[in-house]
């Protein structure tokens, strides 16, 4: 940022969530109404999404935040002296001191909202490339060991240890290997991948480059869902900049190491988030799920050894290399190490990004950070881990966010999405939707998933209508069992999770009689 002293730097997020509530108009309004020279930086979002558009002004005492700023607030704010950080009803105080943000542990999201996402200078000035530089000073095997020791597990849903996957790819003999980033983020209630790509794309690029060095890959792909056009544009621009700076290309950071990176856009199919379906889609085919083995680490993209990791997994790697495995592993509980980027959405008063160590309870997230519902009514159910995740009642709010604790409770952490519903929710309707979604998004390969989901919708309708309740409840249970056992992937395999949890915790919503649950 080379703005001279008399130019005021103002930050207005470019994040698509901020734009959806008017950030572009606010940015234009500030540029037009300012009574002195301003330099408007379009940063990522700090993640306090209920405060968007959140404007920050650079003052001698640090950045001061205002929000939520509507376009028609701008003139009044400028008149009140916003450019000097002056008082105003919308003034939130120094950004870093806002309790919601201050109490988090931002590791993967350390730079999001702080930097100009497309400024290479800003990136380097905020610790960027330190991880890659250190990685290149180590052998690939040492890098893999470091990632293994950090305890980093896949953030895409399954929680598989990243280091072990990388080790397999490193050990595979092949002239050609790939690193693929899964940026399909199809789960409802999740948006952390998007916000990292829009708010700090160089971190993902750096993480993928480190992965490539660690496993001996020369080419990488980022598979981004088509619902995220802004992320696609930001990534493409950042990749061009990275190439121009020698961070990608024939000689990465002047080392004898060549790596290049490309963005591919999905086609609006949820199943393409499943890694083998994604690989088929990257090859230009229909996104059908492949049977495993062979695992992608050995036979992935075009049959070559391939690392497939989620955006947040790869985005955590630069920090791990820069600060060391121990620093990362120092956070968390049990076998869930490091921080997780939780996403609070749905009917929530204070929705957004909460990055914190594993082990925080569900209640601390929903009632604490989230501040309860947006509607002001009582919370009734919370769905954790996307459309295939369980619905939990408030009686389970003391559950710690940790892969094993959730699995033990018949639920999953997944990609860290937490979707809140108030007491107006109809849980039979939510169970029906889970089946409907599976029917719509199934790749069609296995019968239990393809046909079972369609039948599931019908059966739930009959239960709610009170037709042959006990027989149909048994049928639903059998159907769920069949889908769990007979599906190739988690689409069919986990759809029963939201259905059965809704039935178990909220039986009263499924018609009148509640006595028999089998």
């Amino acid at each position, binding site marked *: 940022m080379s703005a001279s002293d008399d130019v005021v730097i103002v930050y207005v997020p470019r994040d698509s969530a901020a734009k959806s509530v008017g950030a572009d108009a606010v940015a234009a309004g500030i540029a037009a109404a300012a009574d002195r020279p301003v330099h408007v930086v379009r940063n990522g979002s700090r993640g306090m*999404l209920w405060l968007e558009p959140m404007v920050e002004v650079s003052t001698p005492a640090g950045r001061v935040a205002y929000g939520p700023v509507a376009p028609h607030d701008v003139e009044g704010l400028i008149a009140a002296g916003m450019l000097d950080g002056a008082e105003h009803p919308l003034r939130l105080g120094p950004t870093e001191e806002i309790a919601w943000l201050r109490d988090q542990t931002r590791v993967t999201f350390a730079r999001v909202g702080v930097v100009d996402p497309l400024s290479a200078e800003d990136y380097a000035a905020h610790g960027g490339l330190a991880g890659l530089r250190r990685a290149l000073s180590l052998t690939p095997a040492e890098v893999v060991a470091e990632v293994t020791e950090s305890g980093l597990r896949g953030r895409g849903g399954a929680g598989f240890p990243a280091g072990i996957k990388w080790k397999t790819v490193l050990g595979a003999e092949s002239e050609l290997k790939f690193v693929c980033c899964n940026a399909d983020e199809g789960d409802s*209630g999740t948006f952390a991948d998007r916000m990292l790509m829009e708010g700090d794309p160089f971190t993902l690029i750096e993480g993928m480059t480190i992965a490539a060095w660690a496993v001996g890959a020369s080419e990488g792909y980022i598979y981004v869902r088509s*619902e995220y056009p802004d992320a696609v544009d930001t990534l493409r621009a950042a990749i061009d900049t990275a190439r121009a700076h020698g961070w990608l290309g024939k000689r990465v950071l002047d080392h004898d190491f060549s790596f290049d990176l490309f963005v591919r856009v999905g*086609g609006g199919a949820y199943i393409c988030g499943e890694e083998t379906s994604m690989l088929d889609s990257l090859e230009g085919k229909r996104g059908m799920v492949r049977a495993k083995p062979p695992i992608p680490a050995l036979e992935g993209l075009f049959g070559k050894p391939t690392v497939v990791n989620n955006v947040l997994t790869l985005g955590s790697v630069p920090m791990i290399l820069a600060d060391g495995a121990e620093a990362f592993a120092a956070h968390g509980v049990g076998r869930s190490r490091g921080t997780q980027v939780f996403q609070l*959405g749905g009917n929530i008063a204070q*929705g957004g990004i909460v990055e914190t160590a594993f082990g925080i309870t569900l209640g601390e997230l929903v009632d604490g950070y989230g501040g309860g519902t947006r509607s002001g009514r009582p919370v009734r159910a919370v769905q954790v881990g996307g459309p295939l995740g369980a619905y939990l009642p408030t009686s389970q709010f003391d559950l710690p966010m940790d892969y094993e604790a959730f699995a033990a409770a018949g639920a999953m952490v997944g990609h860290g999405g937490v*979707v809140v519903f108030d007491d107006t929710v109809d849980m039979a309707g939510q169970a029906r*939707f889970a089946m409907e979604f599976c029917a719509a998004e199934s790749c069609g390969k296995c019968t239990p998933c393809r046909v079972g989901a369609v039948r599931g919708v019908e059966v739930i309708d009959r239960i709610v209508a009170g037709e042959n309740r006990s027989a149909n409840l048994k049928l639903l249970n059998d159907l769920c069992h069949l889908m769990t056992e007979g599906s190739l992937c988690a689409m069919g395999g986990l759809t029963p999770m939201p259905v059965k949890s809704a039935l178990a915790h909220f039986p009263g919503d499924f018609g009148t009689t509640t006595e028999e649950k089998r």
Partner: protein
Amino acid sequence: MPILHAVMEDMGYVDPAAIPILAEELNLSRADVHGVVTFYHDFRQTPPGRTTVRICRAEACQAVGGRTLEERAKTRLGVGFGETTDDGAVSLEQVFCFGNCAIGPTVQVDERLYGRVSPEQLDHLLEVTA
């Protein structure tokens, strides 16, 4: 797929008549290309309306009134999801999540995303497009 996305961008849809040409260019069978076009929700085979309105139907938006918006848009436009109004003005589409789940319900009109959409705002968006 990058080619199909480019076709979508230029034409707004993938004309079934173009499939044999694409197949030849790419050295694939027609069935292969057809299979890909039909697998992905993004590739439509009929011309879209002048404006496309997409409504998020996923859980986080359901929790804040998304279903009301779905019904309202269908009634107002007189079409279902995947359909275009008779005058060719508006296509209505369903989307499962825009990643805007903290400040839903979410509606997209052509390229522009709108968060915290109230029923009144939806009416306004539909009026402007009609």
